[in-house]
């Protein structure tokens, strides 16, 4: 193994140790376990956005729609179909992913600003559906009246409902599955064609890559990950919010990804952590917390265009 590989392995081990021990070090530092859970879920969402933005080079400004669809899919399943957490998670992920796959066919022909605009437009469609269809979705009040269910394995029961730490580890397990899948795809020949498209679309085309089809696959996969994150978010809150589908929420995800570092795999998780923790801390002091987060964002973009994680990289080089 080369020194580079060993270094990567150490970094990876450190990240996972920090995540696994989060409930034990966050609480003494003044945090709480549910905050760590939120970081994981929103981090997964930001990483899903970055799967497209950082690794395929296309900017979706409507990804909150698939996040929100995941949340509603999960909430509706728990409320009306069956009190099963795994089933609800799968339903949420499928709802987000399948809607993404269908709309993706219309979106992938556009590029740049037009791609972003079309994704916003389709995203808003779902926002208004969730907002207007009160009888099913609860409209402006959001979807209430469901809660995550303990998971029964026969021999033992995973009480994710009332035990915050158990729920954190359950979410961490789901996060690990999704992130593992993401990393696996990015290291595959298909993942390399995504990076090729990001680097030079014309060259990719003239290497025989059907660019639109590959962007569509990447978009669809990203929507599945997004739906999964949304599904987990519904479990975190026992609630699905129509504002979770709004384009401003999409903007938050893009912000997390860019702030953390969109060329790096883990950057968006760091971005999400900074965003969520600042939000939690500042919003207890001022209602204008977003001004401060926004200021930080501007500073990062101006001085560290490669994001917060890019700072470490640069100081190493």
């Amino acid at each position: 193994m080369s020194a580079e590989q060993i270094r990567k392995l150490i970094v990876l081990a450190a990240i996972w140790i920090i995540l696994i021990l989060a409930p034990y070090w966050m609480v003494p530092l003044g945090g709480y376990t549910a905050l760590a859970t939120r970081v994981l879920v929103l981090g997964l969402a930001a990483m899903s956005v970055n799967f497209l933005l950082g690794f395929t080079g296309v900017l979706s400004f409507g990804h909150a729609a698939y996040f929100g669809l995941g949340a509603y899919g999960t909430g509706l399943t728990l409320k009306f179909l069956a009190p099963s957490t795994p089933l609800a998670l799968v339903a949420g992920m499928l709802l987000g992913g399948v809607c993404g796959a269908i709309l993706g066919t219309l979106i992938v022909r556009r590029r740049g600003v037009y791609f972003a605009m079309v994704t916003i437009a389709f995203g808003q469609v779902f926002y208004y559906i969730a907002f207007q269809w009160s009888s099913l979705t609860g409209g402006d009040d959001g979807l209430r009246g469901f809660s995550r269910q303990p998971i029964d394995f026969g021999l033992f029961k995973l009480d994710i409902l009332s035990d915050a730490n158990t729920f954190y580890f359950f979410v961490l397990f789901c996060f690990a599955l999704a992130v593992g899948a993401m990393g696996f795809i990015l290291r595959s020949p298909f993942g390399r064609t995504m990076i090729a498209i990001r680097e030079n679309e014309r060259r990719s085309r003239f290497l025989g890559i059907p660019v639109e089809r590959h962007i569509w696959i990447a978009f669809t996969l990203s929507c599945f990950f997004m739906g999964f994150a949304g599904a987990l978010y519904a479990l975190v809150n026992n609630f699905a919010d129509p504002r979770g589908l709004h384009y401003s929420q999409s903007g938050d995800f893009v912000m997390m990804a860019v702030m953390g570092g969109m060329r790096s795999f883990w950057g968006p998780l760091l971005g999400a952590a900074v965003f969520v923790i600042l939000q939690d801390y500042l919003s207890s002091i001022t209602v204008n917390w977003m001004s401060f987060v926004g200021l930080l964002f501007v500073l990062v973009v101006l001085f560290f265009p490669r994001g917060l994680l890019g700072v470490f990289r640069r100081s190493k080089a």
Partner: protein
Amino acid sequence: MNVLEINDVTKRFGNLVAVRDVSLNVAKGEMCAIIGPNGAGKTTFFNLISGFFPPTSGAINFDGRDITRLATHQRVARGMARTFQITEIFPELTVFENVRIAAEVAGGYRLRPWINRSEKGEIHRRVEETLKLVALEAKTDRLVGELAHGDQRAAEIAMALALKPHLLLLDEPTAGMGDQETFQITQLIRRLHRDNDYTIVLIEHDMRVVFNLADRICVLDQGRMLAQGTPQEIAANETVQAAYLGNAA
């Protein structure tokens, strides 16, 4: 047998006729150069062959099949590869990674979410072989964007070669190069043609390169095929001299 048969292709952009009724046959193993003054339609002609856009009229056959309406990636899948006047590469990836993407696509792995050990080994061998061919084997781990211009051109050619093409289209391979680099690229193209039997069509401005390399020269002028023939025939052709070589000299 002809690898490429182009019959009376025309390309209009509004009122402008960029290419008018041009026909060209390229035999297997041939090296054919396309020359002509600026704005003669050379690059448009190349774009028609490689599928950048479809012709307004006319037909293009490749390996005996009609490809007139096929998309670029479908033409590439049938064995056509090209380089560009302005180098098109993946600047933030290494030389190895650039060529590996081409080799994986050519190997049919582009949709695969995994790759096993023996396939990986085969791809690595293929990449190293190709890099040796263009004399970049000492620079495999360098970022392509940081290489000298001549090496970037060589890397682009390596990507095209990794596709194992039956037909190689080179758009001004020596553009922007100094004498030394021009010489090296010319040697490389000659080697590919002579030792590896590639069928090559190239656009070139440098007459030394053209007369040095080509089996056959086609002269385009104002979108029309003015003349084609061996280098000797073209050098002796009075119309060509009047339209082009005379002005250039």
